[in-house]
């Protein structure tokens, strides 16, 4: 399949801070591609460069083969963007906002009116179309931004943290809409720090940290890559001494959450760790109420990657 979005060695610094440091990726037609990372990883800056909102210090970005910085108007005519930090015009109503954006894509009036009506109905804000946007809730504004991104029926959608700060119902609605868009053949580039969301929606993900892509692949690929890891969840009858646990399990990574302790083992052979857990139970004189062993979740992989990078630096 052809790559319709390409980022080639993008670099961007703000003062002394290198926000994006040599990011490259390509997205194929019809894919949902996720840029995943903690706050400040450089996801939004990457999207802003790929969509031509800001210029990179070096590197290039292409949309449908058009260089975003040499031919921004042509390149942007294929995309719809829901930026993370962006707003519709608050003193205009939803309909007027949609009409302005539609006109900027030079869509004929009758077509854009028809599309605006369909989108507002689909997103459940048609009845509010004549209300000024400043009276809209955050969720309604986000839905309007989505409608504004879809008014040109773009081939490619950039969604920067589309569900950030939304209530469960609105977030769920937006996720189901993203999947509907994929069914209709749209290519979607999604940035998120919500790991579950990325695992649920994305065909491929790139995990970013400190301006760099530190891992990329399908969520399943990443799980296989980290397949030799086992996650053991222990639930004791009371909180136990962390120092004692660390003494017994010093070869393992442990996470304490009150009575619950998570142990990450880099092996599928659990005999050694189970022996040590028995010793802890005896030494602390506690009851082990629950024990669960599983492969790493996508979230665990994400945390490990970020942690590994932190340790390296």
């Amino acid at each position, binding site marked *: 399949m052809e790559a319709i979005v390409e980022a080639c060695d993008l670099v961007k610094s703000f003062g002394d801070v290198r926000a994006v440091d040599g990011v490259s990726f390509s997205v194929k037609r019809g894919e949902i591609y996720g840029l995943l990372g903690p706050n400040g990883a450089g996801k939004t800056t990457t999207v802003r460069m790929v969509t031509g909102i800001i210029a990179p210090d070096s590197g290039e970005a292409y949309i449908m083969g058009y260089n975003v910085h040499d031919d*921004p108007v042509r390149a*942007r005519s294929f995309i719809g963007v829901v930026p993370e*930090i962006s*707003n519709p015009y608050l003193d205009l109503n939803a309909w*007027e906002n949609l009409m*302005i954006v539609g*006109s*900027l894509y030079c869509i004929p009036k009758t077509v854009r009116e028809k599309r605006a009506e369909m989108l507002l109905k689909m997103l459940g804000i048609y009845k509010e179309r004549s209300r000024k946007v400043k009276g809209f809730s955050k969720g309604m504004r986000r839905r309007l931004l989505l409608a504004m991104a879809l008014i040109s029926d773009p081939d490619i959608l950039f969604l920067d943290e589309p569900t950030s700060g939304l209530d469960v119902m609105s977030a769920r609605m937006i996720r189901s809409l993203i999947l509907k868009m994929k069914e209709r053949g749209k290519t979607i580039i999604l940035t998120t720090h919500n790991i579950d969301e990325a695992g649920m929606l994305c065909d491929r993900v790139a995990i970013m940290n400190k301006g760099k892509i530190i891992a990329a692949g399908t969520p399943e690929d990443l799980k296989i890559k980290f397949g030799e890891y086992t996650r053991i969840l222990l639930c004791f009858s009371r909180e136990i001494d962390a120092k004692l646990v660390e003494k017994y399990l010093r070869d393992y990574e442990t996470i304490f959450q009150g009575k619950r302790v998570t142990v990450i083992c880099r092996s599928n052979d659990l005999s050694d760790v189970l022996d040590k857990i028995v010793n802890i139970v005896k030494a602390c004189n506690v009851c082990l109420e629950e024990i669960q062993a599983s492969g790493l979740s996508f979230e665990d992989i994400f945390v490990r990657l970020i942690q590994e990078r932190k340790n390296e630096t």
Partner: protein
Amino acid sequence: MKLEDARQCIEKIWVLCLKDMKLYYFKGPTMVMGILMPLFLWLAFVVGKGISFTESIPALIALSSFFTSSSITPIIMPWEARQKTLEMLLSRPVTLYSILLGTALASSLFGIFISFLLVIIGILVNVIPCNPTLLALGIVIASTCYSFMGLLFSAIPSDIPADAVMLSSAVRLPLVFISGIFIPIQNLPEYLKPLAFISPLTYFSDLINNTYSQNSIFDPIIDVIVLISLTVMLAITALTLNKRTLTKRL
């Protein structure tokens, strides 16, 4: 294909101009301020100084065009950057230049509208221009020139509209005093005269004097040529500087 691109570009500039008009100009307070600010400035100079209404209405038109065309433009870019609507526009298939030209066009049209309103009021009270065509041409060029001047102030690398307003007031208010509107240029102190000759308001004020009383310092053709040259210069500078400061805004 190039022609089609140009047509689409003009269409987008017009859409952005209409958006600016709706958001910033077609509002009661803006309309009132557009008339009140120059009106009170004019009254401050005219009342009690034995200057007749007929003599002074050209000054009011010059002031109105100057203030109305350059008052809102400085704040639009910082305001839109702050509201994050600038980023929303920049993610659409438009260039920054189209956005800026839309802003300048809306401001020029507002200045032209208010100035013609005053010309009509003048005609109703029997203050009739001797050369209406030249007056109309002057109003159009001057309003465009002043709107680009306002756009130049908006290039200040800040997303706080008050910063741009302060800069614009610091430049515009002194210009009123040295541009021959209330104090004839011949009566200005020698050290202020060079400044008067680089002020865009001087040439419009001179042109207006010519169209109403045929009493001007320069030939009207010179006024028109200088105004057009200043417009081009201000437009290029405003567009270039705004592009340069865009990264700091976003």
